[in-house]
Structure formats: C-alpha cells, structure tokens
C-alpha cells in the first residue's frame, strides 16, 4: 500500500458530477502523472460534501484547504501551485460574501461551523467504492462489537437508551421498533432499509448511500442480529443510478471480506442484503406499500394493524428503517448511547440532516443537532436569502408538511415543535421561499404532486385531493370565492381524518398551513383577483414602465397578438384589453422596462 503525502478529495456526488467533477478527477490524475508524483499524491472520489451550491468541491488533505467551483481546467494550476509548490490557489477559495474575505479551511466556513456530522460522518472523507477506506474509518467495528460482545437484548436496549427516532419522518423510536419485531417469534424475519426518498427536494438518503454505503449495510446487519433476521432488503428508487451502483459495489466487497453472508466474523451469524428497485411511486415510502412493492405488486398501502413488525414481507415479521436512521446506528455503538443523548434535545436526541434548497444562498446538505433553530439553519449555515430578497416562508416535510413563517423562525427544530406549528419533520427537505413565491401556487404545486401520487385505493385521498386541487386551480385562475376558502379547510380536515395511509392523512397539510399563515394572500386572490407575488398568470397584468422604456420595439416585435403600441424610440404601451399574458415581452425586454403587477 502506498503512503501518500497528500490526498485530493473530489466530490463525486450527483450534484458535483453533474458539473463535471469526474472530468476534473481525470485532469488531476493526468497532471499528477505528468509531474511524476503519482506515488506521493492520490486523487480520491468521495461522497457529497454537502456544500452543493459551490460545487464541484475539492478538498486538500491533510492541509484542510477547501476549493470551491473547481473546473476541469483548474486541475493543472492546483497541481503545479498547491501540490508541488505548496502555494494555495487563492482564486478558488471560498469568499465569505458579507466580509469579502477568503476562507481556506473547511472548518472556517460558516456553512460547516454549526454542523455536527454523525450520519454524514464519512461523506466527503472516504472513497465509497473502496471498503478499505471505510474500514480505516472504523467501518464494521460496531457490528463486530455487537456480534462478539453483546447479546441481542443488549443491542436493542442500547438503541432504546440512545433515544434514536426514525429519521424518515414519523419519529417512532427505533429501538422499540426493533424490540417489537424481535418479540414476534418466527423462523424467518426481514429487515428493510427504506431508501425510497420520494419527497421532491430531499436528497439526504441518496447522499448517504452514495457517500457511505457501508454504514447502512453495517447497521442493517446489526439490526438483523438484534431482531433475528438473516435477510435484508434495500428498497431504493430507480432514479438514483449512482447510489445503486455504489451499493452494488459495497455489497460485493462486504461479501468478499465475510462481513455479509454466512458465518460473519466467525460468530455463526448469517446475514445478506438484496437490492429492490422502486419504480417511481411516492406512496411506496409508506411501509406497507413498500412491502407490497418488494413483493412485486402494486405499491398500495394496507390497513394497520397488523403492523409490519407482526406481518410484513411474505407475511413474516419485518422491521423497516430509513437510511439516515440506520446511518446513525454504528456511531451509537462505538461511542455509546449516553454520548448520543448529549447531542440534540431531551425528546429528540442526535442530529438531523436537512436538504436545504430553494431561494437560499448556500443550497446543500446540512446536519445539525436537534434543537437548532430554523434561523440558524437558513441564515448562519444557508447564508440567507438569494439576491437579498425578503424571506417569506420555509417549507419542511415536503408534500406532507407545511410552511413556517418569519414569526416561528426561532423555534428549536425537533419532531414535536414542528408538529405544533402545523408542519412536520418529514424526511428533511427544507425549501426556502422568498417574496417572489406565491403561497397559493405552492400549495397547488404540492396538491398536484399528491393527486398524481395518490394510489387510488381509498376515496378520501383519491377524490378529495382532486377536489382540493380543483378549488385551488379555480382560485389561481381568478374565479375563487371566499366560500372556496372555507371549503378548502373543511374538505382538508375530512381528508386528513379519513384517509387510509400517511399519504392521504397528510396531503392537505400544505394547503391548510398556507391558508393559516397566508390567509391574506388567499384573500387577495379571491377578493381583489390579484396575486401579490405576481405569479398566477391569469391574475396579473404586464405593464411598460415609461421611465425605463427606450422604445427599442423588441417587445412589439415578439408580441403574438399584437397588443403593444408605440413608435421607435418612444415609450410603448400595452393594450390590456387585448393582452393574452403570454409573457413574451417580459422575457424579451433588455431594459427591465416591463413589470408584472
């Protein structure tokens, strides 16, 4: 094995590879080869660093120099200057936008300062395609400890004591789930890793699987030992080809080293893992639906009880855990349940990973202790709102969650506090919205999603959500009445109370929460027939600002109606009676002289 003096860690997550990070790796390797230092410096493709906004990311180890937005053509300079001469490439350092200073180390970046990385501990640190790097980072030690030193009961007791709760959204205590499955006697049991990350805008599970697949395999084996299962399934979205690829490699390598398969570590414990692919159905994130999908059928949920812990895959006791939950398991055994409890809050110990996205400066994956406030996440870590716009709301919990406004930004994040303000933890999607987003339109967006994804088995969800969407559509078209707003609430509550599974029971949340916090905006749509954020097309008009119009005629030329009048070099006017609101003029004007009102 070579002893390298320096490692260049390049992010190989989906975000960064989409901006050519693999080409950067090739260029770096070529340059290192050219300078004859291949035995001194190694280029490592790692999992996601989380700082996706500034990708591709390159970190120099052990110097802890953090380069951002690195392009393939920067490779030569990095090798010549930094690697060979020891001089940092200043222009590629992260610039703190407020202070305008260049920061060199990862630990100096405000994005990382408040984060504690447990589930993401190895993402951006190890090469996920090499099991040796995982082993060097304490991989599979927790499994060894459980198998060799602990009884099944002690393993379950440790997880209960840690207070770990399901990170997929429900927040059910993981240790109890294990205990229930363990208590149900059966010759065959199953452990399932739920990697069907369906919340659009959440990508933490994908990043964990891409960056540290072994931590999930290891945790599944530990869970298998605890509940008495010899077989595990990972149910993963087919839309995640890179995560699937890395999981396949990880499973093969773990089998080769005897960490999966027959007689693991000579303890007589057998455990193996099989991948099962989703096929684009959001409802399959619900555990009973997921189980039907694993059995090769339509992914429709069924009534509980019986719970999967009693009767799951092939009618055998089954334990379903989410990816992030599992990624927390090995550190709990290596560092102890008491250590885990020192992080986070009393009722929600540990950390939570959030996918911070939308109108925020630093889009990325963020892992913070429970109890951190939304303000800290959005402003300190996320760097505030893009283009200095006004913060309007943050949506958590995806299509099942709700919006949180400025007034509640200082609430410490945990399962209970988010529920109390009409939202939920969910899987961890966190979408920031600014003054330019229309809340009625956002509610409509989520309803369109749930309407599409409703499996159709129960009536309240299948028909009710469609009706909700129709009312919202009517409102955004300018045909809504105040009675419609009352109907939304009544219908929404009924759907929540009467739907069969979690999808229907939470589907009206985005509507109800926006109605609660942004009632004025809904009123403006139905009373004044105006969209205050100027998003809903039927409700807005395009006007030409005389002080900005130079009379270039560009707008008049593209207008399909045509309804723009005016002579060359003179102010133009839009004839509102003819305008079809296509927005062609707005997109064409180079002088920002056309406004939406």
């Amino acid at each position: 094995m070579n002893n390298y003096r320096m490692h260049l860690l390049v992010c190989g997550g989906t975000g960064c590879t989409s901006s050519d990070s693999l080409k950067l790796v090739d260029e770096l390797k070529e340059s290192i080869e050219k300078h004859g230092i291949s035995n001194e410096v190694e280029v490592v493709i790692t999992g996601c660093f989380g700082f996706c906004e500034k990708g591709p990311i390159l970190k120099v180890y052990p110097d802890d120099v953090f380069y951002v937005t690195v392009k393939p053509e920067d490779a030569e300079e990095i090798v010549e200057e930094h690697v060979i001469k020891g001089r940092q490439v200043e222009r590629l350092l992260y610039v703190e936008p407020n202070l305008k200073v260049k920061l060199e180390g990862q630990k100096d970046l405000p994005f990382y300062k408040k984060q504690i990385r447990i589930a993401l501990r190895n993402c951006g640190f190890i090469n996920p395609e090499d099991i040796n790097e995982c082993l060097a980072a304490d991989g599979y030690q927790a499994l060894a400890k459980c198998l060799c030193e602990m009884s099944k009961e002690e393993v379950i007791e440790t997880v209960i004591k840690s207070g770990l709760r399901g990170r997929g959204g429900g927040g059910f205590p993981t240790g109890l789930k294990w205990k229930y499955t363990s208590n149900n006697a059966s010759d065959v049991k199953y452990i399932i890793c739920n990697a069907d990350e369906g919340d659009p805008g959440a990508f933490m599970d994908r990043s964990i699987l891409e960056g540290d697949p072994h931590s999930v395999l290891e945790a599944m084996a530990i869970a298998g030992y605890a509940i008495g299962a010899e077989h595990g399934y990972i149910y993963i979205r087919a839309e995640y080809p890179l995560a699937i690829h890395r999981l396949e490699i990880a499973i093969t390598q773990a089998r080769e080293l005897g960490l999966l398969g027959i007689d693991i570590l000579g303890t007589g414990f057998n455990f193996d893992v099989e991948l099962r692919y989703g096929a684009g159905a959001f409802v399959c994130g619900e555990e009973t639906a997921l189980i039907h999908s694993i059995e090769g059928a339509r992914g429709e949920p069924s009534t509980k009880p019986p719970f999967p812990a009693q009767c799951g895959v092939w009618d055998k006791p089954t334990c379903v855990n989410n990816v992030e939950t599992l990624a927390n398991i090995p550190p709990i055994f290596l560092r102890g349940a008491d250590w885990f409890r020192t992080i986070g809050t009393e009722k929600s110990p540990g950390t939570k990973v959030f996918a911070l996205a939308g109108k925020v400066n630093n889009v990325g994956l963020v892992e913070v202790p429970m109890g951190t406030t939304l303000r800290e996440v959005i402003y300190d870590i996320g760097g505030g709102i893009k283009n200095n716009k006004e913060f309007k709301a943050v949506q958590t919990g995806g299509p099942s969650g709700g919006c949180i406004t400025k007034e509640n930004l200082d609430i410490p994040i945990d399962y209970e506090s988010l529920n109390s303000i009409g939202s939920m933890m969910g899987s961890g999607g966190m979408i920031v919205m600014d003054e330019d987003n229309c809340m009625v339109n956002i509610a409509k967006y989520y309803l369109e999603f749930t309407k599409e994804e409703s499996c159709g088995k129960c009536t309240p969800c299948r028909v009710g959500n469609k009706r909700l969407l129709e009312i919202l559509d009517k409102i955004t078209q300018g045909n809504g009445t105040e009675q419609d707003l009352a109907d939304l609430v009544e219908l929404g509550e009924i759907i929540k109370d009467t739907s069969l599974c979690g999808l229907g029971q939470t589907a009206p949340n985005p509507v109800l929460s926006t109605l609660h916090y942004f009632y004025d905006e809904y009123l403006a749509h139905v009373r004044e027939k105006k969209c205050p954020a100027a998003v809903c097309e039927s409700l807005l008009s395009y006007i030409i600002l005389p002080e900005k119009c130079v009379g270039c005629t560009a707008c008049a030329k593209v207008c399909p109606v045509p309804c723009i009048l005016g002579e060359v070099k003179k102010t133009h006017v839009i004839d509102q009676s003819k305008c079809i609101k296509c927005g062609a003029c707005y997109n064409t004007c180079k002088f920002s002289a056309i406004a939406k009102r």
Partner: protein
Amino acid sequence: MGGNCDTQEKFAELQNFIDSIEDKRGALIAVLHRAQQLYGYLSNEVIFYVSEKLVIPSSKIYGVISFYSYFTTKQRGKYVINVCLGTACFVRGAEAIMKEFEKELNIKAGESTKDMKFTLSGLRCIGACGLAPVVMINDKVYGRVEVDQIKKIIEECEKEAE
C-alpha cells in the same frame, strides 16, 4: 416488430436475466426494469412474454406497469427531455422551463415529437438541487437552466443526432 433477429436477441437476453434470478417471488418489478432497459418501453409483446415466463397473468402485470410512473408502454424519442419538477427546481422557475420546451417542441409534457426525436416529460427530483432548475436529457444533466437557453439546448441535440 416480431421475428427480426434484434428482437430475438433481446428476448434471449431477457430470458437469461429471468433465469439468473434464483428466488422468482417478487421478481416482477426487477424483470420489468430490465425489459424496459432493453426495449425502451414495454410493448404488449414484451408483457405477454414476461407473463409466460413468470407465470403471472398479463392483466396483473399491466396493473403493476400502470401503477408505477417509471414504466411506459409508449415508445419514446431518441432524446428524452426530463424537466425536474422537484420542489427546489419548482421554486426556482421549473414551470417556465417546461412551458418553453413545450412551446419550442410544439408538444405537451408526456408526448413525443412526430419524428420520434424528442420526448418531453417531467421528473420528480434528481437530487441536484444545488443546480436548480435542472433538465436531464438522456443521461446528461443541464444545471441552472434559463428560459432563453432552451432553443440552444434543443439545437445541440439536433446537431448531435445528425
């Protein structure tokens, strides 16, 4: 279709895949994934073939196909344009991007152009939210797409096709 050696070859490959699965319980979705990968879409011919091999009624297979949005029974164009409609992309203007593609290609989302060069569809989050709004054409990802780039993107594909 039917009878030409290309199709025969693919059926042989599908047969090999089915044979390689030890425990055929619950294998249907995996087999359909493989079939769609081979053929691009799931025709009746393919459905009947799978039905026979797995001993599952074709009606049940159709039920599974129509349930999952990943599976398609329609042939798709050479370039499949997927506009990400995940929430992060949506709040950063994915709707306008989709509309522009619809306008430029003169088809609606879910349809293909007559020459079968392009298929336009929406997609739920590929997880590259840092690059929002995102468009994926076959396997290539275009990040931070703006409305006025779309014409160029389509032209790029057309040039490549020639």
